[in-house]
């Protein structure tokens, strides 16, 4: 789960990490009032749950009074990577010298939280990682110790020479770690972290992602969630035991198991088709699940054909076949369906499907090719 910059910075503030004076605004009038209150110049920043908003023109500096309504008006309503900008953050313009990057995330290899710090802040950190990996200092945090004062100091010494900044940094980094742990984050970033004219560290921007698996114990964080329409669909699917992700193609997919579902999408692409979705229905033959899944697939008007790919493991193929038929009897499907059934009791399952006049194929590859063929005809 992601939250907006302004929400991340509200959390930072609660932990006494210094952030810019700022106001979140939903209208141009609010932006004008905020600029009045904060004093010029102000930075107006689109609040959308997508990266690269700067490049998309979603961040602008308003120097004059006239700039504010003009720029706020431009940004509000703007589309950034499919997200409509519904609010902007109006932040006091700050004079600063250097820009740093600091971030915390999970490191799969050390199986620990890792602290990343770089003197090359203000740009996309992935670019730095690619072009100049040595410019990013990485510090593995021992889970039993947490971010100790000495390690926080060591990180700070890697960024700053002035001991006053080292002390501020060490303190700030420990707070950032506490935020990460307290909120079950998967990513916490400040980019850029700047040194103001007064020699103080300040978080100019903030980013936080959270571990979805831990939201059950993070109700305050969960309350910040603003799912998009697509995400609402995904969440709704999840409640029904389905994992659904909408894609851009026209071949609807229904598969049991995430890995197999991914491999199915790969196969469709491999043979030249375009999948309309990722959909994992998990491991049961419950007809209701199939109905829900089919409704979900068909809610996407781009879908021209549905490919069902089931591997029968613990759940036997004959049970799956019966579940499929019982489901398809209950809903109207006006696009062609290709079914591939394999695994435990697949012969019996295929026989059942054949009797119900469902188009069946033997292998995944055949299924993908057949689906693409049918898609072309539609």
């Amino acid at each position: 789960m992601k939250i907006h910059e302004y929400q991340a910075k509200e959390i930072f503030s609660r932990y006494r990490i210094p952030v810019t004076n700022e106001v979140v605004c939903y209208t141009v009038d609010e932006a004008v009032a905020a600029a009045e209150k904060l004093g010029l110049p102000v930075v107006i920043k689109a609040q959308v749950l997508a990266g690269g908003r700067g490049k998309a023109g979603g961040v602008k500096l308003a120097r004059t009074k006239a700039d504010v309504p003009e720029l706020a008006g431009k940004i509000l309503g703007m589309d950034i990577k499919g997200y409509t900008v519904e609010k902007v953050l109006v932040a006091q313009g700050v004079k600063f010298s250097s820009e740093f990057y600091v971030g915390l995330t999970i490191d799969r290899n050390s199986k620990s939280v890792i602290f990343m710090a770089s003197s090359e802040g203000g740009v996309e950190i992935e670019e730095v990682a690619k072009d100049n990996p040595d410019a990013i200092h990485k510090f593995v945090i021992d889970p039993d110790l947490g971010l100790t004062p000495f390690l926080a100091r060591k990180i700070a010494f890697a960024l700053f020479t002035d001991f006053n900044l080292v002390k501020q940094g060490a303190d700030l980094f420990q707070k950032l770690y506490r935020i990460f742990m307290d909120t079950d984050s998967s990513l916490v970033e400040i980019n850029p972290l700047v040194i103001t004219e007064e020699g103080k560290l300040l978080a100019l921007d903030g980013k936080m992602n959270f571990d979805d698996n831990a939201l059950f114990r993070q109700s305050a964080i969960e309350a910040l969630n603003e799912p998009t329409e697509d995400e609402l669909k995904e969440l709704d699917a999840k409640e029904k035991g389905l994992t659904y992700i909408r894609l851009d193609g026209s071949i609807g997919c229904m598969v049991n198991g995430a890995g197999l579902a991914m491999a199915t999408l790969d196969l469709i692409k491999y043979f030249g088709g375009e999948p309309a979705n990722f959909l994992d229905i998990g491991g049961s033959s419950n007809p209701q699940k199939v109905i829900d899944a089919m409704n979900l697939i068909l809610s996407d008007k781009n879908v021209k054909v549905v490919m069902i790919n089931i591997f029968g493991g613990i759940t036997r193929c004959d049970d799956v076949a019966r579940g499929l038929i019982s489901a398809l009897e209950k809903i109207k499907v006006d696009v062609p369906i290709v079914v591939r059934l394999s695994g435990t009791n697949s012969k019996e399952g295929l026989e059942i499907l054949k009797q119900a006049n469902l188009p069946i194929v033997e292998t995944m590859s055949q299924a993908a090719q057949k689906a693409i063929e049918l898609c072309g005809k539609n």
Partner: protein
Amino acid sequence: MSILVNQNTKLLVQGITGRDGSFHAGKMKAYGTNVVAGVSPGKGGSAVDGIPVFNTVEQAVKATGANTSIIFVPAPLAADAILEASEAGIELVIAISEGVPTLDMVKVMPYLAKKGTKLIGPNCPGLISPDEALIGILPGNIFLKGNVGLMSRSGTLTYEMVYQLTSNGIGQSTCVGLGGDPVAGLYFLEILQMFQDDPATEAIVLIGEIGGDAEERAAQFIKEHVTKPVVAFIAGQSAPPGKRMGHAGAIISSGSGTAEEKIKAFEQVGVKVAKIPSEIPDLLKQVMKK
């Protein structure tokens, strides 16, 4: 021979009275796995499918000598169950539970290292040494005893692969589902080493996925430590960046951990990579002929 689990495995089922725990305890027992005990706090003294149930892992280990444990408890309690197994001296823990908070696993890991407990999972389907022991939720009937070792980050894709192997008469020494969570137990490197050391394993299948750099590291490890032939498949070649495809592990972000990079890493160290799953049996036959 095989790795990790065999006829000496004495299995404990944590969460045996739950829906999944009781169902799969029965399945594993029916397959021939030596299921010696179950744990369910407050249900001590009862039995599931003839398997005695205890209140604590310590009691179960003391009474039955269990050396391996499978975890079916709900995700919020899974990390604690893993710790309980480790503390009681269980040598190998297989955590099936899905949705375990990542930071719970981060906190668990150093303790397991200290106690020398091996972990597979969480969010994994388990593992099987065909005809010896099945520990997990895998469909036992699709496996065939043989000499190919298989490891995978995915569940049903593993079954699909195994089914194709078995259908082609290629048997397996041990098949391990590693799970797809960001912080997991044994992974490619450790399992590769075990297969390398296992006399019964002649070739290795590695089924990877987009996200992270486990496959790249596996490729490097194979180059340095593995002399047995390895073939691979990477799922998620077509996944759009930034989308999470079921497995928490399978996220592509900004050009790292892509299928393309992983395939390249393998090919550079001489590991053949199947373009589509159905190529695996043929690739295996090629490398095993040599």
